């Protein structure tokens, strides 16, 4: 019945573009243990972890080295055994190119692990227990946004459909595809656990129709379950949350609304695998599959990398750079961020490292052709937003739903004038959020100031009342004394 339902409603989203895949699906190779592992304490905006180890401590693989300071943050685990050599500022994988506090772990080569605490029959456990287990395992969305999975699975309002996102629509990236081929069974197990936590009636794994091997592997692994494996057309960005939901169900999620408000949740396929490892094997998230590719690398491949491995170690494992290596991008060619150095370490969100020559092109003025609006998958008006962000009209940017821009980069690709549109949207977004922060700060200061004023006024009034009372008592005593004199 469900099969019919989905087939009937199958549709597509507006916009999007068809890109060359450039995907080299290799088997997942494991490099040798790096000498040094680097763990930044800063996760993403406003999310920090706190180091719970000291310099000189000996840690084992799987041991927590930094704890989460809120539910929006996740703990970090050591990916191998060794000694904490320092906690110092190092360059981190962030578009700012700034250094931040990192825990540095010198590995001892033994790779001895803590004893795992598996939970074999997860159906007997409460959903809160499983969520806690996922949080303690440090699992975040491995598709690139790194949102804490346990927070996403908090399950209110009720979720009817769980979508496991294996679309992997961005060119060059093939880590999810190779993981699906290698570990389809485990992914299905992980998806069942997530479905159990959410109590969702439907679970769909969506995969692009350009990945037949992975599709078959998943189909075979899921044949005894209710999980549906659904092919989606290979149009970029079909892996976007709202776009994927529209392709699968035909339902369009309105601007400025979140998909879970409509009963959907999307999880990346690698996250599913991590959940399987965390719950059924008791292994925290310390490794992930990462694609190292591009014209600038000698041997492009998928690597099972320990989180915290310096990028230069992975490059060395791929036989080093070619003469085309000019820039290092974390993520894909469409949405990735440029990194300043290969000393930076792999983080949980790193799904791909792309080493490419720089393609510089002169920016021409906008000719208002409107091609960007045709390809925008969020149905925005990029050209209008571009003018507003250029002239710093932030209110207009907000009114034209800038917040709905998923920064997919379709508009950049089709722009005949080569205008870096996404760049200007990022500037506008960060300016707007900065202004919001400042307004909040000002409101707080205003409130504290007003409270202080009121307190001072109250103290004055109390003093005045006390003075009155004293005066009255003195008067009384004086009167009494006069009375006594008279008597």
């Amino acid at each position: 019945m469900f099969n019919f339902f989905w087939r009937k409603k199958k549709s597509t989203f507006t916009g999007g573009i068809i890109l060359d895949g450039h995907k080299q699906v290799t088997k997942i190779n494991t490099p040798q243990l790096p000498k040094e592992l680097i763990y930044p304490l800063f996760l993403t905006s406003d999310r920090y972890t706190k180091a719970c180890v000291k310099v000189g401590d000996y840690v084992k693989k799987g041991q927590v080295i930094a704890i989460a300071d809120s539910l929006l943050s996740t703990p970090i685990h050591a990916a191998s055994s060794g000694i904490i050599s320092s906690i110092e500022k190092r360059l981190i994988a962030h578009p700012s190119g700034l250094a931040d506090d990192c825990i540095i772990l010198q590995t001892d080569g033994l790779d001895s692990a803590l004893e795992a605490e598996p939970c074999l029959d997860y159906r007997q456990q409460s959903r809160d227990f499983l969520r806690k287990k996922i949080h303690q395992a440090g699992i975040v969305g491995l598709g690139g946004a790194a949102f804490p999975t346990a927070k996403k699975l908090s399950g209110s309002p009720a979720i009817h459909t769980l979508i496991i996102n294996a679309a992997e629509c961005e060119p060059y990236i093939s880590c999810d595809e190779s993981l699906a081929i290698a570990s389809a069974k485990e992914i299905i197990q992980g998806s069942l656990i997530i479905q159990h936590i959410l109590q969702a009636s439907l679970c769909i794994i969506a995969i692009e129709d350009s990945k037949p091997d992975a599709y078959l592997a998943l189909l075979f692994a899921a044949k005894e379950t209710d999980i549906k494996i659904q092919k989606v057309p290979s149009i970029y960005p079909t892996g976007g949350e709202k776009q994927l939901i529209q392709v699968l169900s035909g339902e369009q999620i309105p601007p400025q609304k979140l998909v879970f408000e409509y009963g959907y949740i999307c999880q990346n396929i690698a996250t599913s695998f991590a959940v399987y490892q965390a719950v059924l094997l008791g292994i925290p998230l310390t490794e992930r599959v990462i694609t190292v590719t591009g014209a600038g690398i000698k041997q492009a491949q998928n690597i099972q990398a320990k989180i915290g491995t310096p990028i230069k170690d992975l490059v060395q494992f791929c036989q080093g750079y070619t003469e085309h290596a000019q820039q290092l991008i974390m993520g894909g060619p469409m949405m990735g961020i440029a990194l300043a150095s290969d000393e930076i370490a792999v983080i949980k969100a790193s799904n791909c490292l792309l080493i490419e020559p720089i393609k510089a092109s002169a920016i021409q003025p906008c000719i208002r052709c409107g091609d960007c609006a045709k390809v925008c998958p969020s149905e925005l008006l990029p050209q209008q937003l571009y003018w507003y962000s250029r002239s710093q009209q932030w209110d207009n940017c907000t009114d034209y739903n800038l917040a709905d821009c998923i920064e997919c980069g379709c508009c950049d690709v089709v722009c005949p004038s080569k205008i870096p549109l996404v760049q200007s949207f990022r500037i506008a977004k960060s300016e707007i959020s900065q202004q919001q922060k400042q307004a909040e700060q000002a409101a707080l200061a205003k409130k504290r100031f007003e409270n202080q004023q009121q307190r001072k006024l109250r103290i004055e009034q109390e003093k005045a009342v006390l003075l009155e009372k004293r005066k009255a008592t003195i008067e009384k005593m004086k009167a009494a004394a006069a009375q006594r004199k008279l008597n």
Partner: protein
Amino acid sequence: MLFLCLVFALLGLLLGFAHKKLKIKNDPLVEQINNLLPQTQCGQCNYIGCRPYAEAIAKNEADINQCPPNGEAGIIALANLLGKEAKPLNPEFGEQKAPAVAFIIEQDCIGCVKCIPPCPVDAILGAAKQMHTVIASECTGCELCISPCPVDCIIMRPIEKTANHWQWTQDV
């Protein structure tokens, strides 16, 4: 004729009643102006806080370019609100500085509590003969605590540039 007089009298009464009942206590313009001010309560504008300055602007007693922490963007916002022409910041009142917070050099602090009353947002923690400290997240950077300190142990520290505070800019 009589009927009309009666209707007008009734309407008059209704208006009078509405005026009393629905009177807005705070001047809405002052509130709007105050919301555009940075709430540092630093007094650089020569008024004792942001609200008094907002009141003075509303009464046309003060100009819109007397608030250094608000900077050029703030002056433009005020000009737009009031339908006035934007003008550069009046240097008499100071210059716009990079955001900073007060910091107490703790080994120099003698615990005199002189810095605590001037702080407009109660951001300094301390008691007599005890070492004081500034709650950095609450400090507005007004510098009012600097001059009362007899041992000059309070300094202004610029807010550190971290990845969390970083913004996208044109040149990246």
